[in-house]
């Protein structure tokens, strides 16, 4: 069904504290980068409009806090996401190892209808640092992504704006597929039978 309105996509970004979720957002939305670390409090909400296959799409990006103490934003918070971005720091093995639990947590909280095929995108950030510091090899990450239903994988640098645009193009594209693939329920409900007693208008006493 062709929509006359711009499509709106809800994208949630998850990952350990300090992997660069907010920096990546800032690079993508504002084309800015700062070396200074500022922890996200609760969640940030950003909006950006992008073109995907000739369609104008509004991305509603939910940049969440990675710190444990903010994990109580509520059961309804993840609900109705169109795509979930899992992010880790290639120089931090632990942040990679927790991707599993982030993914599971999301699937439990958001409980998407088709959790097998729900679109995830994995980003390995901070590839601008020197090679010797790298703790998670590309191969290891790709293997993990393959085991999770061929999840798209990107290696990014928020600092040097490497792969940021490409990653978000894929995110938007996959989210859009999820948003539009189902056939709409557009049948009319059953007509009202005014004379049947079963259908009697409760509020009317006259």
């Amino acid at each position, binding site marked *: 069904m062709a929509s006359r309105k711009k499509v709106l996509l809800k994208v949630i970004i998850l990952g350990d504290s300090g992997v660069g979720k907010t920096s990546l957002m800032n690079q993508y939305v504002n*084309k800015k980068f700062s070396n200074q670390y500022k922890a996200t409090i*609760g969640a*940030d*909400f950003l909006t950006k409009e992008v073109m995907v296959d000739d369609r104008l799409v509004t991305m509603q990006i939910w940049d969440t806090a990675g710190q444990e103490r903010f994990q109580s934003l509520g059961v309804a918070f993840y*609900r109705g996401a*169109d795509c979930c971005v899992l992010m880790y720091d290639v120089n931090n093995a632990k942040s990679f190892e927790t991707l599993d639990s982030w993914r599971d947590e999301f699937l439990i909280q958001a409980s998407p209808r088709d959790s097998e095929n729900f679109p995830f995108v994995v980003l390995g950030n901070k590839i601008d640092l020197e090679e010797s510091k790298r703790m998670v090899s590309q191969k290891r990450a790709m293997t993990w992504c393959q085991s999770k239903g061929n999840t798209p994988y990107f290696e990014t640098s928020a600092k040097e704006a490497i792969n940021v645009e490409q990653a978000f193009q894929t995110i938007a594209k996959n989210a859009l597929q999820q948003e539009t693939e189902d056939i709409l329920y557009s049948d009319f*409900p059953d007509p009202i039978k005014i004379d049947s007693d079963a259908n009697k208008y409760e*509020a*009317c006493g*006259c």
Partner: protein
Amino acid sequence: MSPIMEEILSDSNSILTSDEPLSPTLQPQRRLKSRPTTQISFDAYSSSSSGSSIKSFNTTPNKVDTGADYLLGLISKSNSNSATSSERTKISPFHNVKIGKRPHSKIMLTKEASSEEEELAQQNICIDSDVPLDNNGDDSIISRNDISVTLDDKEYSGYRRKYGHEDPQSITWSRHRKHFFILSSAGKPIYTRYGDESRISSYMGVIQAIVSFFADADDTIRCINAGQHKLVFLLKGPLYLVAVSRTNESEMQLRDQLSYLYNQIVSVLTTTQLTKIFEQRVNFDLRRLLGGTEPFLDNLASTMSDEPGFMFSSIQCVRMSKDLRDKVGSIMQSIKPKDLLYAMLITNNKLLTLLRPRKHSLHPADLHLVFNMVNGSSTFRSVESWTPICLPKFNNKGFLHAYVCYIASNVCLLFISPDKDKFFECSEAKNLLKEELSACNALQEIEKASQNEGYSIADIGVPGLRHFIYKSRTHVQYTSPAFVAPYGDPREKQKLYKLYCYTHDRMHSRLRPLKVHYYVSSTETILGWITCSFELYAVFGPLISKSALTSSSHTLLRWIKKEEESLFIVSSPVF
């Protein structure tokens, strides 16, 4: 006690259904039975005045604290923006809103919010209207050159929203006195009264986060009082509706308005469809199915701000002689098409006559939706239309079908049928009706009656009376004279309306409903009086004595009693 007040109840004859008990004093507890919910109130001013109305405060102090911080995050969104705006003003299609839990940020944020309010107060010329009365705002919107993406996407419906292109970051946007937001439970925007809903999606995220935070504790957020602002929440299954207002309307009044907006959405989709869609896909973008219905939501949002019928959950009738009304009713009865549910004639948001089955009366809330549909679009004026409509109070699960056609310049005929294939029968019936009405000169007479702006206060001849609203609880209808000087001026009219709102709220207060309320302001004296058969709100000058006020009110009641059959539809034809 005046004999007029001792009216006998005859509910069997009422054409309209009312939700409220006829005798409020017998069931004062009725409204208290709502679910345990939370109301936060954290500024000194409002907590002192409404502290007693906090029903249940079942969150831990720690949680309330953070809840308030969430809120501050929301309220201060424009501030947090301005803090970072030096780098972002040039790239304005992006919005960044933060919600936070830092306890120490609380004071600072409140301070900023209040200084912003002062600024607002200085700039705000029309303090009493929730719609700016002047058009200065529009110029400043056009002069903003940072909006480029939203200009062409609304053209499909040929409907240009008056405030549709306002930038949510602008002062004109935040200056509006009453905002309505509708979002899905996933936090996706569905409707905003001002601006483009896709550009405020970050604010929707904040609202979703606040709702979600309380949902986590099996609690439901109802209302937040923040300085002059009230944020009222109505959660209806997959839809969240939020009013952000500084109109001084009460929480209950705002929540009623949110229900009307919800009903408007149901009237387009039915609850069956609404639930099914979100059961299948919680991420559904509902704007796809509501496309083209914004005019109706817009129209409803603005009429609710100056039409007392919503607040009084009743409707107004055209004043006309009983003979004429009966004549029109019996002609309608004689030509009624097969499988008809309701037939009605309406004009200017007023009912002329209604034909209904014996078993079914019509709820005023449904009638308001019908009025809103007819007034919300000008297309009905030129053609005969056939449209599906769901009347939620009648049956929220299915569609009825409405035949809509103007039979005179200002008189609109509606046939409502459960059968979707009855257009041609209705159309024929309309021709017949028009013929027969013209033959006995009734068409001309109702056209004349419909052109009146209403009766004047001078017709009544009650000394000192400036304006009044009288609701007949038995008929579920109200009557009110036309707004003449000094209330001809829109600003004065708004002020008067505000006075009615205030008095109405005081009298219907959940904890202590009043039967009589007497209030003197610097410009008016208002008497509110509720009995088992009527509600009266009578406005006098500020200097009137209590005895003069009492005798005038009795004179007014006598006049209404005498004119009852022309002011109200006392009995409507049934089949």
